[in-house]
Structures are given as structure tokens and as C-alpha cells.
């Protein structure tokens, strides 16, 4: 059985399953992206980093306590670090100049410092949590599905719904969107764009940390994985259209499936080139994303 491009057709269901789990992970990062971009107009370079921080702190805490308190400790620690990074560095720098270049660079500086601190604190070995509901895989259409993959998918659905509800149905969410679309008008009705940006940033850190907690049992996380997740989430978010949160999730699955199929094929070495070549094409040809629904309207 050779199949297309050397993909064994009998393994097809398994390849699709791998793509779905990868896609769910990228989709989780893309939700954080979409949230921050939609509510503040900033590109969240730290999305993957907060995922890694949440995973690492939870893994360390779980050596001393059961999973749920450990996850709470991990998420709170990540949010605290995000708050310090925002008020200590990002906000002062953005107040001087709010150009996208500056926004990128200051976040990369924070990323470098955090990676350095993680290397010193957690060491270079990857860390993982035990799967939440055992390791016995069950079979769907001939593909072995680890139970943890369902946890990741479930977390994705919960976060997607929660973020959409917060943004569209709650007063703080409306304030966030208002501040992003017209900062002056928002200030006139009593919204403080600065504190809105801070809360969005911390909310994004919290959901990224939770994503990290459910992801570690599937793939161990090491201190320098942050940017890799960020970039994968970036690609997903761009495919779906920046600021379009549900589009970003679909983009995540597209990237996940492409990665899984390319890795299983005879051109596995070019997986990254294919994914980022696709990113290049989409950015140049359809900067609004390839999915045209739920178009971003001004609030």
C-alpha cells in the first residue's frame, strides 16, 4: 500500500486523528490570539509562552498536591506573571509609542527574559502531567484515540464558547471591544482602555495556562517551546483571519491536518516549509483570512 505521496492509506484514520489533536492545540493558542487582537489590537506574541508557563508551573505544583489545586496554582502563577510583565514592561513601553513594531519587540524582550528565567527555575528537561483519565486508547474508525485528546478538544470548545460569551454578552467584553474599535469614544462613556487592555491580557494568560495544563499529558512541554506554539497559533489565527476567533479555531484544525499529513508523507522534511509557505501565501493573497464568515464588524 503506497497511497498518495507515500501515505499509507490504512493509517489514514490515525493521521486524521493526529491532525485533529494537533489542530485542537493550535486552536487553543489561536483563541488567545483572537481574544487579544480583537480586544486590544495587539498581536499576542506571548500566547505560547503563557501556555508553557501554565504547563510548567502546574507540573511542578502537582508533585506536591493533587491535579486540581495544582492547576489552580499554575493558572494563578501565570496570571500573576502576566500582570507583572504587562504593568512592569509592556504598558510603559507602549505608552511611549504604540506602533506594531514596538509592540512586537517589547513582547519578544519579555519572551526572552521569561525563557531565561524558566531555564534557570525549571531546568531544560521537558515536563509532563499524567493523563487525566488513564492511558487506555479507544478506537474510532480504526484510529486509536488517547482519552487526553478528548480533554483537549473539550477545553477548546469550552474556551471558544466562554470567550465568545464574554466578548459579546457581557459588559466587560463589550467594553473591551469598544476600547479596541474606538478608544476615544470608549473613554467618553467611562471605559478605561488601559485597564481593559490589562484585563484582556490577564484573561488571555489564564486561558493559555489552562490550555497548557490539558496539553502537557499529550506532549511534554519544555522551557523554550513557547515561541513554537505562538507561531503555530499565529498561522492558525491568520488562516482564520486575525480577530476572528472561531475562524482561528478552524485555522488551527487546517494547520493541524496539513502538519499531520505532511509528516506522514514522503516529503516529511518539508512539513515546516509547507505550513509557513501556506502562511506566506495567505498573508499575501487573502490577508483577511481564508474563512469568510462572522466578519469582524465594528462594535
Amino acid at each position: 500500500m503506497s497511497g498518495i505521496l507515500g501515505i499509507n492509506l490504512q493509517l489514514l484514520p490515525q493521521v486524521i486523528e493526529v491532525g485533529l489533536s494537533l489542530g485542537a492545540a493550535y486552536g487553543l493558542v489561536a483563541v488567545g490570539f483572537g481574544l487579544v487582537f480583537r480586544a486590544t489590537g495587539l498581536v499576542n506574541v506571548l500566547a505560547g509562552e503563557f501556555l508553557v508557563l501554565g504547563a510548567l508551573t502546574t507540573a511542578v505544583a502537582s508533585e506536591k498536591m493533587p491535579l486540581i489545586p495544582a492547576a489552580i496554582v499554575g493558572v494563578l502563577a501565570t496570571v500573576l506573571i502576566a500582570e507583572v510583565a504587562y504593568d512592569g514592561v509592556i504598558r510603559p513601553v507602549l505608552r511611549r509609542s504604540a506602533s506594531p513594531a514596538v509592540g512586537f519587540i517589547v513582547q519578544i524582550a519579555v519572551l526572552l527574559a521569561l525563557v531565561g528565567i524558566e531555564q534557570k527555575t525549571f531546568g531544560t528537561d521537558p515536563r509532563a502531567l499524567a493523563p487525566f483519565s488513564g492511558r487506555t486508547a479507544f478506537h474510532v474508525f480504526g484510529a486509536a484515540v488517547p482519552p487526553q485528546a478528548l480533554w483537549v478538544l473539550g477545553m477548546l470548545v469550552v474556551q471558544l464558547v466562554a470567550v465568545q460569551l464574554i466578548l459579546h454578552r457581557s459588559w466587560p467584553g463589550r467594553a473591551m471591544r469598544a476600547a479596541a474599535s474606538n478608544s476615544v469614544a470608549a473613554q467618553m462613556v467611562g471605559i478605561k482602555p488601559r485597564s481593559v487592555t490589562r484585563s484582556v491580557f490577564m484573561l488571555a494568560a489564564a486561558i493559555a495556562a489552562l490550555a497548557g495544563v490539558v496539553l502537557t499529558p499529550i506532549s511534554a512541554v519544555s522551557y523554550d517551546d513557547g515561541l513554537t506554539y505562538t507561531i503555530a497559533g499565529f498561522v492558525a489565527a491568520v488562516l482564520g483571519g486575525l480577530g476572528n476567533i472561531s475562524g482561528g479555531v478552524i485555522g488551527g484544525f487546517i494547520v493541524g491536518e496539513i502538519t499531520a499529513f505532511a509528516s506522514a508523507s514522503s516529503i516529511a522534511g518539508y512539513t515546516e516549509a509547507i505550513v509557513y509557505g501556506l502562511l506566506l501565501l495567505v498573508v499575501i493573497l487573502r490577508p483577511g483570512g481564508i474563512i469568510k464568515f462572522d466578519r469582524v464588524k465594528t462594535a
Partner: protein
Amino acid sequence: MINAAFLRRQSWRGALVALMVLSPVIFNVLGQSVYLNNIRLVAVYGIIGLAQTLVLGISGRVHFGIVAFGVVGAYAYAYSGSHWGWNPFLCAVFAIVLSAVASAAVSIPLLRLAGFYLGLATLGLWFVAQNVAGNVSITGGRNGTSALTLISAGIDETMLYMAIFGVVLLIADTVVRSRRGRELFAMNDDSEAVSGFGLSTTKYTFALFVAAGAMGGLSGALLASDVQYISPDSFGLDLLVLILAVSVIGGAQSVWGALAGAIIIGILQQFSSSYQNTSAMIYGLGFLVIILLLPSGVAGFLASAAKQTGRLLRSRRSDAPLGSSVDAVSEVHVLSGSLPE
């Protein structure tokens, strides 16, 4: 235009470049020739960092793809030397030309983009270049390939590197301070006003991207010649962050920022390599501190400090009221592209 006053104004630049070229001799006399290696790296990082500085400081765009042209230049240099038996200097010229052509080709679609979209697309460019270099057979794949050296290693080589960096700096400085250069800078402040004067911002940005690609290629060729070996790992995330750090730490407002940035990064690297486990932390925190405290980089800080001292001295001499020093401070803020709060 070349008269005594012009030469006097230019003299510090010439002196600085002469000092750069002579620095290997000075280190040698002081018995510190172990650092020659670091000086060559300062030149390599400085040239590619200068490319980033020009793009970031002039057009205000974030372009991560300069590293991709470093990849093109390094492999063009290595391949033409080992497969076609060319003279290493010819190989270096070939590397510059090929990366400039590559940059011109990809810049045409990229010119439509700005802001994060350009940042993202160029990030993709770097990934693709690195990934393809790691898989194609002519590059030697993951294992990399060997490269010729420009001239035999040692003090001559280091002086050559510094001389090349010095020449590139002088050319960039001349262009930036010419009429064209002022138009380029105006583009960053207000591109609509520049278009209103009948100047094509697209044409200028294109020229800037091509020049940045050529400089990236030169830097890649010099890196290949220095270590006589090249692999995709030489162009990883470390290099991407490093050149961003060179231009931000040094200051993207002036071409001399790239020199200051490359020297500081060289020192930081040398310093942090003796603390294995904490090196990344020192590096990252150092980067943060400089971004927070010196928004226009080290070169911008030095320039505004010099200007401010000059103002203060002059106002003291003419017994001007104290208010004029306040003007000096606000002018410094305007110069560094930021507003007093």
C-alpha cells in the same frame, strides 16, 4: 561641498571606522588576541543588524526575513566556492548579488503588506528558507556543508571583517544623510505627506528591502567564511532574535546604532557564555532593561545626551534663563521619537 568644515564634521566618523579596523591590532598588542573571534562576530552581527536597523528605523516595518537572505548568502558563498572552485572574494560578491536578487523577487508581493502582516509573512519566509536549506541535497541538508575562508584566519582576517563592516556603515550613513535618505526618513513619519511630494514610497521601500537582503547575504557569507562551515542551525531563532536585539539595543534611529548594538551583544554573549545556565536569563533581562530605560537605544541615548550637554553648556555661557534647558529636554524626546508624558 568638500571643504574644511565638511571634513571637520565628518572626522569623527572616519576616526570611528579607523578605530574599528585597528581594534584587532590593539587587542593583539594588549595580549588579548583570544577576543579576535568576538570582533569578527561583531562585524557579522553588525552588518545584518544594520540591515534590520535600516528597515526598522527608516520604514518602521518589522522584517524578520533578513535572516532568510543570510541563509541564501551563506549557501551561495559555500556552494560556489566548493563546487565551482571560485575565488572566495568572487564567491562573496556572488552571495551578495544572489541574495539581493532573491530579496527583490520576494519583496514585490511583500510590499503590499505592513504592520503585523509583514512581520508574519517575513517570519514565514525565514522558516521556509531554513527548512528548505535543511532538506535540499545541494546544501548538505541538516548536516550542513563546509565553506572556504576569505583569507587565512588571524589578525588580517579580523581587520578585513571590520573594514568591510566599516565601509558598509559609511555607505549607509552617507545614503541616510543624503537628500534621498531624508526622504526615506520622512516616509516613516508621514508616508502620505511623502507621496504628496510626488515621491514613491513603494519604490523607496523596495530599494530598502533589496539593500537589506544584500547586507543579509554579505553577513551570511562572512559567517560561513569565519567558521568555514554552514548549517541550517546557524540561522535559527537565536540569530533572528540577535539581529533584532542589535538594532533595538543599539538604537534604530541611526546607522551607528548597529555598531553600538553589535558591540554590546558581543560583550553580552562573551559574558553570558561563562554562566552556562543563566546566560539566557542575563541576555533576556539585559534586553528588557535597555528597552525600558533607553527607548531610542544606546546610540540614541548617547546622541541625545551629547546634544543636551551641548545645549546646557551653551546656555550657561550665554547666561540664558533656565527655561531653555527644558526646551532641550523636550527636543530630545522629539528626537528619540517619543513624547514627554
